[in-house]
């Protein structure tokens, strides 16, 4: 039973309209008299906030429906249709997209408000809000799209906004390069997505290429094609959600303004891959082998990123690697078919990671765009609100009970254990410990100890209300979001999982209370170990360490960027040069040139006969006549 509600289309349309208006205003005025920042800020926030209220409306109308009828949809118009293919511009709100919708608009609105303060004084203030609005609109299309093709619109749209916002300060070449890298790497993933859609369509899509029809026909998909589709779609997910081997763009993406890092590169866009896998749970449930691969890639990514995270100097890069690592958890979750656990982690992660980034942004602004943690220290007293909120975020990220991250991460690890993926669970526990370690390494170095740069320390001051209020709100979310899916062992009812049930195809494993206690205990132990190591090493004033051996290897991120550069980028450039300098002129064009040369040679050869004297031509004529006469007399005889 699907209910048609026409306001669905307006949810993405509002921010998009905002982007258009802001963009035109900015274009019209950027070279003349500037419009006041306040106007831009207010206009920029209208769209997201309205979308948030509409998302609430969607959520509550879904709640008012019986469980199996929780589908709201709206087809705006036929987007394109040819042959068997029929793609409507349709939107679908079900429990899954409603959850995504809620936190995307909620976190998005908060970050818009925060940006009013953060971007103060930037010459391209209006452009920033236009891009942010565009991003939010695209993200909402991604979430609300009723089929893979409409989702792809948002999918690419958020990629574009990511590119634009990473290279926002475009005067600096490295920022633009980081943006390019993000776009190109995402595009590699998108290739997988597009091909996956192609296979899916020719497999079962002819009877309707939207989620509900696909879900209904999923059993018709043969196993090999199903595997191909799942893996190709997962390639798309690795690009967007920064998994091995396409994770390299996310740390570089920190070149963008901090609200961007918080909104796009931590809370919302990068989770799109997880959302997509959950969306296609009816396919992945069909093909267990694909889920296996997803889970392993996810967990390995989590491990790798956690290792890198332990060595970073840049506060935002630490958070970036922690994002990659947490995304790995999410994929491990959806990979072991615990889709609701993965989505729950997406949900809680959005709060605490946005919080951490915004708090980091507050620190960065306070220190006038200093991002190196080894130039900070002792900021606890100067930035009390920031410190408290960041501590809450850190505890949530590290998985300290009862903060949000603990429950969601535990749910994933328990699902892995209960579904028999013991090795994945063990790695997960280790990564949890590492997460605790690098999170508190960061907090201790930045906020505890003594100031390392006295001058910067003296000028530091707490951020304005417009920035701290979102921090506090997010901190509250980080504390309490986890209770939404309290498992039975803590006396809860897993409301979140039940809420999602109509959208997903999953079977909750029942491992028994013993396993559950084991999982919880292991996570808590890992957290305690990680924090205590960090406390031992960094709660006292320490200088910037010099890395040797394996540590140096980790500090340089296993030289993966360099490897990619040597193996992919350089040969690509080389082939380009080779084609344009050698192959094109000397191979492909050679027959053409040769034919021209041949004609010229013929010309030169016959030029000899062209003496230029009329008499000579007369002689030729006579000779010709003579030969002709000879031939004719021959034939006469």
């Amino acid at each position, binding site marked *: 039973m699907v209910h048609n509600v026409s306001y669905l289309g307006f949810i993405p349309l509002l921010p998009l309209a905002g982007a258009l208006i802001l963009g035109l205003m900015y274009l019209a005025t950027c070279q003349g008299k500037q419009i006041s920042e306040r106007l831009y800020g207010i206009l920029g926030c209208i769209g997201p906030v309205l979308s948030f209220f509409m998302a609430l409306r969607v959520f509550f109308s879904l709640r008012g429906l019986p469980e199996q009828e929780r589908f709201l949809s709206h087809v705006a118009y036929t987007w394109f249709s040819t042959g068997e293919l029929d793609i409507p511009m349709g939107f679908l709100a079900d429990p899954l997209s409603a959850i995504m919708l809620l936190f995307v608009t909620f976190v998005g609105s908060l970050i818009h408000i925060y940006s009013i303060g953060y971007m103060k004084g930037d010459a391209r203030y209006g452009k920033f809000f236009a891009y942010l609005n565009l991003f939010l609109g695209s993200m909402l299309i991604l979430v609300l799209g009723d089929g893979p093709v409409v989702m792809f619109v948002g999918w690419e749209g958020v990629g574009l906004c990511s590119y634009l916002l990473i290279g926002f300060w475009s005067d600096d070449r490295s920022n633009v390069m980081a943006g390019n890298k993000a776009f190109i790497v995402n595009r590699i993933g998108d290739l997988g997505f597009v091909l996956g859609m192609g296979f899916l369509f020719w497999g079962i899509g002819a009877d309707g290429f939207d989620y509900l029809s696909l879900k209904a026909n999923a059993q018709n998909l043969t196993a090999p094609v199903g595997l191909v589709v799942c893996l190709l779609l997962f390639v798309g997910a690795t690009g967007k959600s920064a998994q091995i081997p396409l994770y390299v763009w996310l740390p570089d993406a920190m070149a963008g303004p901090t609200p961007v890092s918080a909104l796009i590169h931590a809370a919302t866009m990068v989770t799109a891959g997880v959302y997509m896998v959950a969306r296609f749970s009816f396919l992945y449930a069909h093909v267990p082998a694909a889920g296996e691969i997803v889970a392993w890639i996810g967990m390995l990514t989590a491990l790798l990123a956690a290792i890198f995270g332990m060595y970073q100097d840049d506060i935002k890069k630490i958070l970036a690697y922690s994002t990659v690592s947490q995304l790995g958890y999410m994929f491990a979750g959806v990979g072991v078919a615990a889709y609701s656990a993965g989505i729950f982690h997406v949900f809680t992660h959005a709060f605490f990671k946005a919080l951490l980034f915004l708090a980091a942004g507050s620190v960065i602004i306070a220190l006038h765009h200093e991002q190196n943690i080894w130039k900070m220290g002792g900021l606890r007293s100067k930035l009390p609100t920031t410190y408290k909120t960041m501590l809450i975020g850190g505890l949530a990220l590290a998985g300290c009970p009862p903060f949000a991250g603990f429950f969601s991460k535990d749910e994933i690890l328990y699902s892995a254990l209960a579904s028999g993926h013991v090795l994945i669970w063990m790695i997960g526990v280790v990564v949890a410990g590492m997460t605790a370690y690098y999170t508190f390494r960061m907090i201790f170095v930045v906020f505890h100890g003594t100031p390392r740069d006295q001058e910067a320390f003296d000028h530091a001051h707490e951020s304005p209300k417009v920035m701290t209020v979102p921090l506090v709100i997010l901190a509250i979310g980080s504390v309490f979001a986890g209770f939404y899916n309290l498992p039975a062992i803590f006396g809860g009812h897993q409301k979140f999982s039940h809420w999602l049930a109509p959208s997903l195809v999953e079977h909750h494993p029942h491992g028994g209370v013993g396993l559950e206690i084991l999982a919880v205990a292991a996570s808590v132990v890992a957290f305690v170990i990680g924090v205590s190591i960090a406390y031992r090493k960094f709660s006292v004033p320490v200088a910037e360490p010099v890395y040797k051996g394996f540590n140096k290897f980790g500090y340089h991120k296993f030289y993966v960027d360099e490897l990619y550069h040597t193996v992919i980028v350089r040969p690509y450039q080389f082939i380009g040069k080779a084609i344009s300098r050698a192959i094109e002129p000397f191979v492909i064009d050679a027959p053409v040139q040769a034919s021209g040369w041949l004609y010229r040679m013929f010309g030169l050869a016959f*030029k000899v006969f*062209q*003496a*230029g*004297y*009329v*008499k000579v*031509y*007369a*002689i030729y004529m*006579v000779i010709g006549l003579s030969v002709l006469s000879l031939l004719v007399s021959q034939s006469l005889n």
Partner: protein
Amino acid sequence: MINNYLALSIVLFCLGILGVVSRRNVFVVFMAIELMLNAANLGFVAVSRLHVNMDGHVLALMVMAVAAAEAALALAVIILLHKHKGNLDTNIFSLLKG
């Protein structure tokens, strides 16, 4: 009988060719061309006699008219060339060389 006339016409024509080919004096070349025209005329008139048909005569008249026109123009050109180059050698005119 007529074939003797035609043979004479052929001989004269060939002599004309030889004149054009072997001489470099522009006057001689020009007159050799006139010789060939005359040889052709002789052919026309002879065949005309053979068939008792006077179209050959008319053609001969035409050829003469053309020859006259040619003579007028050619001589004008020769004068011009002589003025320009001060020479009568056909080989100095090689503007057709590619």
